[in-house]
C-alpha cells in the first residue's frame, strides 16, 4: 500500500469512527462525507476510476445530502430526560460494541490466516468505460434492468412515504 492509499485509509477509518460516535448529527454526516471521499480515493488508487467517481457522485452528492436534510427535518427531542425510558438490566451499548468487536475479530482472523489467493501485484489493466458499458448491456443487462426498476420503485416509494398530506384548508381551495 503506497503512502497516499495509507493516508486515505486512515482518513476513511477516522471519519467512520467520528461519524458513528459524535454527538452532533450534522458533524456525523460531514464526517461520513470525509469517509466517502477517502474511500473514493482508495478506489482511485486501486484503478477503479469509474467506480470512484460514481461513489463521489452518489454517496457525496446524494446520500450525504439526504442524510443532512433528514437530520435537519427531524430535530430530535430525545435528549429530553423526561422521555428517556427506564434503565434496563443490560446496557445496550457494551453489548453492541462487544458483538461488533467479535465480528471484526473473526473477520480479521480470517483475513490474516487466508492463503487462498495468489499474490497478484502486477498492474492490472482496468476495463475501459466502453467495455464496462458493453458488459452492463450484455452480460449484466438483467441486473441492470432490475436495479433500474428498484431505483424507480424506491423513488416513488420515498415520495409517497414522505409527502405531506394536504391540509383540509388546501383541499377546500383546490390548490
Amino acid at each position, binding site marked *: 500500500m503506497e503512502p497516499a492509499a495509507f493516508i486515505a485509509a486512515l482518513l476513511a477509518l477516522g471519519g467512520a469512527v467520528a461519524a458513528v460516535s459524535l454527538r452532533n448529527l*450534522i458533524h456525523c454526516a*460531514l464526517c461520513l*462525507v470525509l469517509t466517502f471521499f477517502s474511500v473514493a480515493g482508495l478506489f482511485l488508487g486501486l484503478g477503479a*476510476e*469509474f467506480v470512484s*467517481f*460514481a461513489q*463521489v*457522485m452518489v454517496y*457525496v*452528492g*446524494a446520500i*450525504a*445530502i439526504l442524510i*443532512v*436534510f433528514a437530520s*435537519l427535518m427531524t430535530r430530535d427531542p430525545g435528549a429530553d430526560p423526561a422521555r428517556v425510558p427506564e434503565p434496563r438490566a443490560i446496557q445496550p451499548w457494551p453489548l453492541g460494541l462487544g458483538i461488533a468487536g467479535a465480528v471484526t475479530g473473526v473477520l480479521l482472523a480470517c483475513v490474516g490466516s487466508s492463503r487462498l489467493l495468489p499474490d497478484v501485484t502486477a498492474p492490472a489493466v482496468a476495463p*475501459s*468505460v*466502453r467495455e464496462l458499458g458493453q458488459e452492463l448491456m450484455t452480460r449484466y443487462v438483467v441486473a441492470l434492468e432490475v436495479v433500474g426498476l428498484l431505483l424507480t420503485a424506491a423513488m416513488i416509494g420515498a415520495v409517497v412515504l414522505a409527502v405531506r398530506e394536504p391540509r383540509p*384548508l388546501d383541499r377546500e*381551495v383546490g*390548490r
Partner: protein
Amino acid sequence: MAQTLDQLLDLVQQRLVALWPAPWQPWVAAFLGAAAIVATFGGLFALTTWLERKGLARIQNRLGPNRVGPYGLLQPIADGLKMLTKEDIVPRAADQWIHFLAPILKVVPVLLAYSVIPFGRHLVALDLEAGLLFFFAVGSATEIAVFMAGWGSRNKYSLLGAMRAIAQLISYEVPLVLSAVSVVLVAGTLSLPAIVDSQAGHGWAGLANWHVFTPWGLAGFVLFMIAATAKTNRSPFDLPEGESEIIAGHMVEYSGFKYALFYLGEYLSLFAISGVGITLFLGGWRAPVAWLDWVPSYLWFGAKLLGCIAVFIWLRGTMPRLRADQLMNFAWKFMLPMSLVTLVAAAMWHATATWTFPGAGLWRWVLGAALLLLPYRALSRSLTQRGRLGPRRYRFAD
C-alpha cells in the same frame, strides 16, 4: 507557423520543464499546468466582474464603473483590495471549523473540475476516460460546501438560503446530467477530448459538425445552459442568495477574504460549466468554418467562453428572479421531461446515422425537429393551462 502558434503553450511548458532535473519533472509539469489554469481563470474572474458590471449598467441605461483606471478596468483590483483588507468576522455562535472549511471546500472542487476540460488541441491537464463523470462528481461536492456554509454560520437566513440552494442544485443536476448524456450517447465516450474529436470535420456548406447544429443538440444546449444557470446560482435562478429576501443566503455571515472565496468559486464554476457546455455542444476548441482553422485552438475556446459569459450577463440583465415554487415546477415539470425527450431525439439521430437514401439528411432533420417540437408544444400548453407556471393564486386574496 500556424501549428507552432497552436501548440505554443505546450512548447513553453516543455521548455520550462526541461530546465529541471529529471526526477522533478512530473511535479514541475503538474505545478505549471495547475498554475496556468489558476492564473488564467483567476484573471478571467477579474475581467468578468468588470464585464458584468459594465454590461448590466449598459442594459440599465447606466455607464458602469469608469473611475478606476481607463474605462474602469482597474475596478476588480480595487474591489479585491477592499475584500482582502476587510475584517474577517466569525459569529460567536458559529461552528468554527465548519464555518472556516466551507469556502475552501467551495473553491477546491471547482478548481479540480478544470483539470478535465480541454482548452485547446492537446491542452488538457488530465485526459480521464470518465472525464465527464469526474466533472459532475466534483460538482456535487459544492452542495456540501453550501450546506456547511449555511449551517455553520448559525443564522436562520443562511440556513434557509442553504436549504434553498441545495434543493435547487439537486433539482437542476438531473436535467444537466441528462442533457449531457445525450451527447455521450451520440459520441459514445465520456472523455471530453474524445467528445471534441467526435465533432470534427465539416458538413453542409463548410459548417462544422458541432452537436449544436442538430435538432437534439440545439435543444440539449439550451437545456444544459438553463440548468447551468441554475447550478451556478445565477439570475434568474439566484434565489438561494436573493439579496432582497434572505440577504445573501448561505454567505450572510461571511466577510472579507472568505466571502471573496465564495464569490470566486461561483464565477469559477460558471466558467467551468460553460467550458463543459462548449466542449459538449459547441465543438470545444474547434473552428466553426474550415477556412478559419489556422486560428489557434485556445483562442477559439476563449472566444466561445466569452460568448457564453456574455449570454449569462445578458440573461442576468433581463430576467426577474423566479419564485421557489416556480423554480421547482420548472425543474421537474419542464426541464426533466424535455431533457428525456432530447435523449430520445439523440437516440433517434444516432440510430438513423446509417441512412443513405437520397434526402436522408432532410428526413433526419424533420424527424428530430418533430420529436422535439411536438412534446415541447404539448408540455408548454399543459403547463400554462393548468396554471402551474402562471400567476399565483393566493388563498385568501381572491
